[in-house]
């Protein structure tokens, strides 16, 4: 059975002085309006929230109540920074199973309610607390920074190549009204910004943002009965890896991405070259470079050159993160994966305005990583 995305909503990302449920409501109301459906036509609500930085420790019910879904679930899901995609998967499988016909997946995160050093200490627990954070003070930037030093040593990837990912992200985000940062930056701005974790500097890192996104999914039967406008989910891939960095084979890529990509391409029966665009998980600039390689857009080790030669920009081999990426649009953890679906749906409907990509095959991919490849979820969509 096919499942279609029939409605999408996304809040403005950034520091938002509203509650978790008020934030979720903004995204849900936009998604329901977009789908031309009401709450009583939704059978199940899935609430994705990492929640570790917010005061509402068990957020699913408050979010569900405020969005008018009391009685319809909720299922709360958590998969670190890939939580949003795990919520979409849960909604998708609930429909495929035949238990429900219409499900909403909500991803919401409040990240600005605690100070930065606390946020770093929480993110640093995204691996294995006892053996990593407790002893060595790993932070989330530190995990990716270790991948960066390994990638630089093996493939001669440069800090300038990483900076180019940030410059592209900000150039695109300038035209995205939902983005946390709508301003351009230069390579020099990135290279001269202070080190957070060598070799990653301030502008190599996604910001700390609040945000929410929501999607309404429906069975093909309902899409036809109600004559809804659907973007179809053609492929899904998921994988995961060890909690401990030391138990990984290497640090120049994410195995979870490679495995999830294989699964998704196989299910959708396509190759990377069939895609018109992709949203990849660029929580740090090095993550985007590794994603090019791990998703098969270029060979292993050539990610630095791929960005340098403009292959991931408009008119390139595959435009990547035309919405500004996590880097400049923002990365409110649970919202991120669903916000990617939002951007892809806008593109495939040709509603992306100044950021619209020329479509040939009407196929796009979202790549959502949790932790440092601790989780990976990939979706392939078509119109």
């Amino acid at each position, binding site marked *: 059975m096919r499942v279609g995305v029939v409605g999408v909503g996304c809040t403005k990302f950034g520091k938002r002085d509203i509650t978790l449920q008020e934030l979720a409501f903004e995204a849900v109301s936009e998604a329901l309006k977009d789908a031309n459906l009401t709450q009583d036509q939704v059978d199940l609500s899935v609430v994705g929230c990492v929640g570790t930085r917010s*005061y509402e420790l068990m957020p699913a019910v408050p979010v569900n109540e405020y969005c008018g879904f009391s009685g319809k679930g909720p299922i709360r899901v958590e998969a670190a920074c890939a939580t949003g995609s795990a919520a979409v998967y849960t909604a998708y499988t609930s429909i495929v199973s035949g238990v429900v016909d219409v499900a909403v997946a909500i991803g919401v995160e409040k990240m600005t*309610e605690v*100070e*930065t*050093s*606390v946020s*770093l*200490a929480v*993110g*640093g627990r995204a691996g*294995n607390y*006892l*053996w*990593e*954070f*407790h*002893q*060595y*003070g*790993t*932070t989330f*930037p*530190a995990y990716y*920074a*270790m*991948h*960066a*030093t*390994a990638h*630089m*040593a*093996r493939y001669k990837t440069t800090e300038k190549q990483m900076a180019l990912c940030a410059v592209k992200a900000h150039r695109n985000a300038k035209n995205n009204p939902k983005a946390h940062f709508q301003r351009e930056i230069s390579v020099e701005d990135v290279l001269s910004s*202070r*080190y*957070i*974790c*060598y*070799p*990653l500097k301030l502008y190599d890192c996604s910001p700390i943002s609040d945000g929410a996104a929501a999607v309404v999914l429906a069975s093909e039967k309902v899409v036809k009965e109600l004559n809804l406008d659907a973007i179809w989910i053609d492929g899904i891939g998921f994988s995961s890896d060890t909690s*401990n*960095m*030391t*138990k*990984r084979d*290497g*640090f120049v890529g994410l195995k979870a991405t490679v495995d999830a990509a294989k699964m998704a391409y196989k299910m959708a029966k396509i190759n990377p070259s069939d895609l018109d665009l992709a949203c990849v998980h660029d929580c740090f600039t090095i993550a985007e470079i590794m994603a090019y390689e791990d998703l098969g857009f270029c060979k292993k080790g050539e990610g630095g050159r791929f960005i340098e030669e403009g292959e991931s920009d408009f008119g390139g081999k595959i435009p990547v993160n035309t919405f500004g990426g996590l880097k400049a649009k923002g990365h409110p953890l649970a919202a991120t994966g669903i916000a990617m679906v939002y951007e892809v749906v806008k593109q495939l409907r040709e509603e992306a305005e100044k950021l619209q990509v020329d479509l040939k095959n009407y196929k796009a991919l979202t790549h959502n990583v949790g932790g440092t490849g601790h989780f990976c979820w990939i979706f392939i969509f078509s119109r």
Partner: protein
Amino acid sequence: MESRELPLKHQLPISKIEKYWKGLEEGKVYKTVCSCGREYYPPQADCSFCMKETEWVEIDGVGEVEAFTVVYSVPKGFEFARSYTIAIARFGNVKVMGWTEKVKVGDKVVLKTGKDESGVWKVYFEVI
């Protein structure tokens, strides 16, 4: 306005891996090895695959650095340090995380153990 404070400080249950923590105090770093051939670092008392109990084996010799970073933006709990370097080095079949001084990928290191300013025992690498 501010929320009520919720301090979270946990008791860490280390009874099954006590040998590791005692080893650090004696200058030793242990991995665990299963009769099926799998080796674990960080060590674990159970083999995740064949479900048997593992044995404790000391790690020594020379390791090679595979990745590192210098943390300048320090998280809550590490305020005692202005910055610190984390590295991962391979010792035979296992990889070990540790703190170190100036280092680069490919450097050869040996293991030391010690306590940081907050009293937590850990592995330190010495570049040779």
